[in-house]
């Protein structure tokens, strides 16, 4: 039996990460059940002016194909999305993506705060936020927004992080629900997968 309890359905999972998060992300993507249903939206800090290559690098070991969404594209079940280079990625009411070239936030575009905040507004308590290793504080405020809207918040165990500034900032600002290693995050997602299946 799993130690994670779920009492409802979830509409999306957002994952934020920066420096030192790549290996963790790859591990999570390679361990996903093939029929994992909840859309996963990743906002990872990346080189601003390299448009190609990142999706391909993440895809090598990913169970599911990864897409960089177009502006106003619909969010679909079973898909994994990645914020494109040099754009902020937000969620619109009506479950579409929206891109923007606004000012950088915390020196970042895409900004994790923007993805998390907009997602928390649209999905409210039916959202799960995961924040991984990183060297700045982008994402900490977004995690608070998810928590304020009743969603579940997870951060990577700072001791496991290559650079723990990002998860530690989130832990400082918000009472995070679960502080987990990558392996435990995978366990969490598998338990969630089982739970979602029992709902259908």
């Amino acid at each position, binding site marked *: 039996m799993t130690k994670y309890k779920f009492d409802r359905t979830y509409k999306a999972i957002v994952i934020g990460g920066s420096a030192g998060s790549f290996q963790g992300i790859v591990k999570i993507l390679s361990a996903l059940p093939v029929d994992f249903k909840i859309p996963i939206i990743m906002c990872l800090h990346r080189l601003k002016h390299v*448009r190609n290559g990142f999706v391909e690098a993440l895809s090598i070991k990913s169970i599911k194909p990864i897409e960089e*969404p*177009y*502006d*106003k594209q619909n969010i679909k079940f079973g898909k994994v999305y990645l914020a494109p280079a040099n*754009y902020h990625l937000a969620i*619109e009411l009506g479950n579409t993506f929206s*891109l923007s*070239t606004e000012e950088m936030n915390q020196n970042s575009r895409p900004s994790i705060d923007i993805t998390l905040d907009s997602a928390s507004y649209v999905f409210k308590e039916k959202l799960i936020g995961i924040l991984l290793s990183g060297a700045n504080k982008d994402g900490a405020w977004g995690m608070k927004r998810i928590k304020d809207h009743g969603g579940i918040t997870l951060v990577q165990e700072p001791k496991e992080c290559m650079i723990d500034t990002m998860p530690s900032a989130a832990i400082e600002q918000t009472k995070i629900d679960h502080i987990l290693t990558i392996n435990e995050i995978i366990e969490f997602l598998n338990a969630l997968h089982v739970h979602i299946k029992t709902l259908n």
Partner: protein
Amino acid sequence: MYEIEISDIRKLSEIVKEKYDYDFTNYAISSFKRRIKRVLELYKFKSIAILIDKIKEDSVFFEEFVSEITVNVTEMFRDPSFWRELRDHIIPNILLNHDNISIWHAGCSSGEEVFSMAILLREMNMLHKAKIIATDIDKSIVEKAKKGVYSMKSMDLNTKNYIRFQGEQDLKDYYTVENQKIVMDPTLVEGVSYRVHDLVNGGVFNKFDLILCRNVMIYFNQKLQNMVLKKLHESIFKYSYLIIGSKESLIWCDIASKFIVVNNDEKIYKKIKD
């Protein structure tokens, strides 16, 4: 934290529409909300009601509001591979059938894209054959675009982009440095006509061989994107080109069947039906 409600945004848009000739009703909510939040923070307004009152009674402030609401983050030669494609294929193709080329920068912001185009055309020795119109909704940003004065800081990125574009010169051949500011060579844009024009409420005013409207419609909802695309379609000659941002798409739009994709990576479309 102060929450901006959708109903507040609707109210604000209605008042703007009533009092001024601008319609923000169909702007994409997520970014519009962030822009409003930014204005509240910038002017230290405690609520959207205060902002609405200020807009109602102060038309000078309203102009500032329009400047702050619109996103003016841009680069020279943004997406260098696109500019290479333009130089190597699209413009030569247009000039096969035309002696001159007419270009519209729809949403020109602070003008970096216009300078990129002018540099590209000068290097092709075609600048004298181009008629360029650059428009933006924001009066103050159009003034800035005309001046062509930029921060030293921004040139780092612009220079990197220019190198990736594989231009013939050094970017610094096209500007001088005065008082720690970059002053672009004014002869590049002496033939450019800069105008204030709102894509939403403004009419169709001319026809072009090439329209660039990159990362402008991402701030609109789908309904408004369709309306604006209809106008852009009317503003292009048959068999001429429309270019949008690298992560925008015409696929979902009503007008999609009247265009073909020329280059999907660079989002270059050709009008094939009136």
